[in-house]
């Protein structure tokens, strides 16, 4: 059995007037994967999602979603996608239940069927007790869960989540991660954007690291770290009198710290303590944030 390619993008560029929001991007998404687009604000993540969901159109390049053309087969493509937009765009005039019912009509779902689905979805996201509350009265985490429920009303093949957990507390964030993992278990294909490296690391099979409209690198999160910088990171706080040249590994000077990324932590540590006795440092596994700083010289979050 071959896994199907669900989305293919070749040399996609998107200009807003003369500003290049996406600059010659290539990517693909396979059936059943969780693919992450990781990048700071303004990297072009939302723009890319708009192109996939046919709510904006590319300036050049080729983009196929479910093998269909995003400019010609908008209705067919949109019927197969569930979108969790970056901003919660509910109808504030409606209750939780009404929001879902009204949304089901946009997909042409019959009332009886919609009622059944709404009940199941409210159970899935844990909002069954909030059915008749006004959406404006929900907490931030509940709002996000409701938006996820709404994105599933058409039983989509592909679910796209634009910064699903931005601004949420850790507990709500974990709940949403669980939901995303459940959806994957049910065979859904998932795209998410984030500027949280833990999120990308934990959930994604593959990530595309983006900055300023470009894809800098892509692959499996762990493999990317191994390939580019090494699995262990030594973070040094007082660096004035440290002679680091002798130490093997990638050295990055960033703000008031020095980061040494290496696959051989033992050797690096021995040399470090030889060089300077009262050096202050911590040792930890390398993460995607380190990789991002290494590749761009910038932090993911401002």
């Amino acid at each position, binding site marked *: 059995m071959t896994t199907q390619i669900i989305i293919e993008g070749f040399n996609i560029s998107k200009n807003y007037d003369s500003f290049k929001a996406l600059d010659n991007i290539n990517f693909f998404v396979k059936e059943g994967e969780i693919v992450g687009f990781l990048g700071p604000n303004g990297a072009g993540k939302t723009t890319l999602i708009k192109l996939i*969901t046919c709510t904006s159109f590319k300036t050049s390049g080729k983009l196929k979603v479910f093998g269909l053309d995003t400019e010609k087969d908008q209705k067919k493509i949109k019927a197969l996608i569930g979108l969790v*937009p970056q901003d919660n*765009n509910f109808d504030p*005039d409606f209750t939780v239940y009404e929001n879902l019912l009204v949304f089901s009509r946009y997909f*042409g779902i019959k009332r009886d069927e919609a009622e059944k689905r709404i009940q199941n979805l409210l159970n899935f996201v844990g909002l069954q007790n909030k059915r008749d509350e006004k959406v404006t009265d929900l907490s931030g985490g509940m709002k996000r869960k409701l938006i996820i429920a709404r994105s599933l009303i058409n039983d989509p093949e592909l679910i796209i989540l634009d910064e699903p957990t931005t601004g949420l507390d850790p507990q709500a964030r974990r709940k949403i991660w669980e939901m995303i993992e459940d959806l994957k278990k049910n065979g859904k294909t998932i795209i998410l954007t984030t500027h949280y490296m833990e999120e990308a690391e934990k959930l994604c099979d593959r990530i595309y690291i983006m900055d300023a409209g470009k894809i800098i690198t892509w692959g499996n999160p762990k493999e990317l770290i191994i390939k580019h910088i090494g699995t262990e990171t030594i973070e040094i706080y007082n660096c004035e009198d440290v002679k680091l040249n002798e130490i093997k590994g990638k050295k990055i000077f960033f703000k008031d710290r020095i980061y040494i990324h290496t696959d051989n932590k033992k050797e690096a540590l021995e040399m470090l303590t030889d060089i300077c006795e009262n050096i202050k440092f911590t040792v930890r596994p390398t993460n995607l944030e380190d990789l991002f700083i290494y590749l761009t010289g910038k932090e993911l979050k401002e």
Partner: protein
Amino acid sequence: MIILTGWIPVWKRNRDVFKKLFWVNFFLPLLEPIFYLITFGFGLGNFVRDINGMPYKKFIIPAIVAMATLSSSFFYTTYSSFVKMIFQKTFDAIIATPVSIEEVVMGEIMWGATRGIISGFMVLIFLIFLGLVPLKNLFFYLLIISILSFTFSSLGMLFTSIVSTIESFNYPIFLYYTPMIFFSGTFFPITNFPDFIVYISKIIFPLTYSMISLRALEYNLNLKIILEGIYPFFHGIIFFILSIKLMKKKLIK
């Protein structure tokens, strides 16, 4: 991309909100025509001579029906649609579903028109009840109400597609809508003005035709009246097409 029925879920969404807020949205504004009637009909009407043989109380009836119809449709597709588009991002949510932007705009205009028809109809029933509109004119009045509702719902959407902030609605409202309310032969006959003014008024304010048509209806229904009554519908079609085009440009970047 318009599929003939694609706008209906959008229309239904608006209907559902309307039902929830029936009292504030709808019943309270219906008091306004009563104030017009008291002020101009029963108040001022006692001091004003007949106009071309028509008692002033009767003269202003078409205007009262039109006021209710216009404000209900026009102010829906201006302020309400704008708030939904810019602040609530409702349109963004809908266009990520199989409903297209054209269908969203069409659903909005159709709902604005429906509101206008409901308001106009309620006022009409009230006026028939008071004996100020003969029952036999019910259907022609309804035709005019429907046309005005569609035309001004579309015009409102056209303005919404042009303005960039909610405050800038003041331009079309004070430079177009308000003058139209007063200078379309609503509360006084414009035929007393020089011909070129009448001519300009007829071109830029399609409401002028509706007023002429409904007043002539007091005497008898003929083809000229029907044509004059239908005339604003063509403005409506132009506003409708333009507003869909401009709205698409505004929302799909």
